[in-house]
């Protein structure tokens, strides 16, 4: 953070001046580590074990914020009787179908709920009513145990699941001393509760992993157990590297959401009433779903919408599944997408499976240009300009001809423009993380002596 968000880091130094403890968990010793009180040099990619060790410490020593956990999390909810944890089934959860290579999530649900309660981020894509999904007003009362003692309550299952992450096991996996895990966990626990809060800050050090989601979710478990979510000075801060990544998700320019995280209508529910019923919750923020929807439609269409035309609901396009980036690019290869607007983005840099795939497509009559390595001169303004570069394209064909070598400029992570020799590469060369100038590997160095 000191190197990549230095102006933000002044506040970390301010907190330190007021007595905060700064803990830096990073295989490298950077300028942030120099300013930190504790530096934990875990092996790259071992964060699941490290965070698991902290969860285990909290649960084994009963250091969670009891009232918060009971009132504001699902720790007291009781799961179905046929749920089995990885500890019972030697590494898999219940519902594993070996032949299909997939989980059947029925046994993971709460007791007494007839159907599945979908996870966040999933419900916008899959229409309610499919796969017996229940949500909104259809979700019934979930049985709870406020004492957190019921053997099938989420809290006890969590305790059993994380019991294996002992300090010694974490030390073996992460390449640190057991005392370091205990020290970090103790610092976190000591600084959480009713009077104090602690925050986690992360950036691409967590997200640029295939298991990045697991790291962040485990950090969420820690923060929920300690009662740090939704409180000043707490939470999990994602230090996003761009000015408007979050805005692009909130506003959003995504296929499955309308501004303010309202779901796009799904073709399965093409009646206004159905759409409302599946998206309105019984209590809480989303119980006022209709107000938010009407507010949006009035902002967009003004007086043209009213109660008689269902507030313009039928003017909205409906999704029928996954229309995300990869699906769209696959459709381009099949010639279904005739035009592409690319704004403020240069997907040809760095090399991505997407651009290689579109580059390989056989000659077709439709699909787009400009964003692939096929273009003679990729829109360099898109890479370094902050204002959106609108390169709308007409129908054109792909050929199998090799991309011509082109000089282009790319903005390196330190903000210095440097010319790149060629954006064109032989397509057969496999993608290598080192080619994009990723962080140096620590392989081959001896682990640092624990302090």
């Amino acid at each position, binding site marked *: 953070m000191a190197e990549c*968000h*230095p*102006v*933000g880091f*002044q506040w970390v130094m301010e907190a330190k001046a007021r007595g905060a403890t700064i803990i830096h968990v990073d295989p490298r010793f950077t300028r942030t580590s120099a300013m930190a009180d504790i530096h934990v040099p875990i092996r790259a990619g071992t964060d699941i074990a490290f965070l698991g060790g902290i969860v285990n410490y909290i649960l084994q020593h009963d250091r969670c914020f009891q009232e918060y956990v009971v009132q504001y999390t699902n720790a007291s909810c009781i799961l179905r009787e046929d749920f089995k944890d990885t500890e019972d089934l030697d590494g898999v959860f219940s519902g594993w179908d070996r032949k299909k290579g997939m989980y059947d999530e029925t046994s993971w649900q709460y007791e007494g709920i007839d159907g599945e309660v979908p996870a966040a981020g999933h419900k916008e894509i899959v229409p309610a009513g499919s796969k017996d999904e229940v949500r909104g007003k259809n979700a019934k009362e979930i049985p709870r145990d406020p004492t957190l003692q019921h053997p099938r309550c989420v809290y006890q299952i969590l305790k059993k699941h994380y019991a294996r992450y002992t300090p010694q096991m974490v030390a073996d996996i992460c390449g640190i001393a057991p005392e370091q895990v205990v020290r970090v966990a103790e610092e976190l626990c000591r600084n959480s509760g009713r009077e104090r809060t602690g925050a986690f800050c992360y950036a691409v050090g967590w997200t640029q992993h295939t298991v990045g989601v697991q790291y962040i979710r485990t950090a969420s478990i820690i923060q929920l157990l300690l009662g740090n979510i939704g409180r000043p000075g707490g939470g999990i801060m994602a*230090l*996003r590297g*761009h*000015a*408007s*990544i*979050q*805005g*692009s*998700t909130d506003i*959003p*320019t*995504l*296929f499955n959401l*309308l501004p303010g995280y309202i779901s*796009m209508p799904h*073709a399965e529910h*093409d009646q206004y009433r159905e759409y409302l019923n599946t998206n309105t919750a019984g209590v809480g923020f989303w119980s006022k779903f209709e107000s938010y929807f009407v507010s949006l439609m009035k902002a*967009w269409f003004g007086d043209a919408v009213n109660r008689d035309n269902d507030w313009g609901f039928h*003017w*909205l*396009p*409906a*999704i*029928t599944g996954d*229309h995300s*980036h990869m699906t*769209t690019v696959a*459709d*381009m290869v099949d010639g*279904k*997408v*005739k*035009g*592409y*607007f*690319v*704004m*403020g*983005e*240069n*997907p040809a840099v760095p090399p991505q499976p997407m651009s290689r795939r579109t580059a390989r497509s056989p000659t077709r009559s439709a699909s787009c240009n400009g964003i692939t390595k096929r273009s*003679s001169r990729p829109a*360099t303004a898109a890479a*370094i*300009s*902050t204002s*959106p*570069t609108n390169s709308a394209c*007409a129908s*054109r*064909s792909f050929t199998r001809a090799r991309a011509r070598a082109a000089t282009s400029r790319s903005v390196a992570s*330190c*903000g210095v*423009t440097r010319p790149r020799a060629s954006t064109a590469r032989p397509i057969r060369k496999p993608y290598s993380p080192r080619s994009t100038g990723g962080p140096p590997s620590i392989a081959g160095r001896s682990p640092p002596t624990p302090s």
Partner: protein
Amino acid sequence: MGLFKVLGSWPLARQVAKGDATGLDGTAYSARTETLRPRTENADAVVKSICPYCAVGCGQQVFVKDGRILDIEGDEDSPISRGRLCPKGAATFQLVTGNHRVHHCLYRKPRGTDWEVIPLEQAMEMVAQRVRKTRDETWEARDHKGKSVQRTMGIAHLGGATLDNEENYLLKKLYTALGILQVENQARI
């Protein structure tokens, strides 16, 4: 007389005359240095803005004269940055005025190998015509199950993380009203 004047303008002599032991009180200035002024001194206006780079969102002051940017500096009034900028933010000036910026609309004909410069009005007209034509050709009122979808799958969008909230809002509003569904963003990728 000339020699006296030359000796008098010698920095050491000036230091002694002024009692300036450290040489910091302007006694070391040359005649040219005396005439120098900050670029921003005769700006017409100062526009408050936010740094376009990372998520910290430091405040910036953009000094403008005659419709051109003179300089971009940190904004003391910002509670987030308190006037500080990192090296990237401090160099925002070159992002706007650097010679790598493209200033014209470029068009490459189908199967063409060269870009040609076209005026903005012509480019906008071409884009609008293509959007209209493609939308009409690929319009889907109902899907294969007979459900109402009211969309076109023939046009898609990919946005970046430097599009600000206002731009994102207008994009989403335009595309949704046109029935363009495949709207994606770097945020997801």
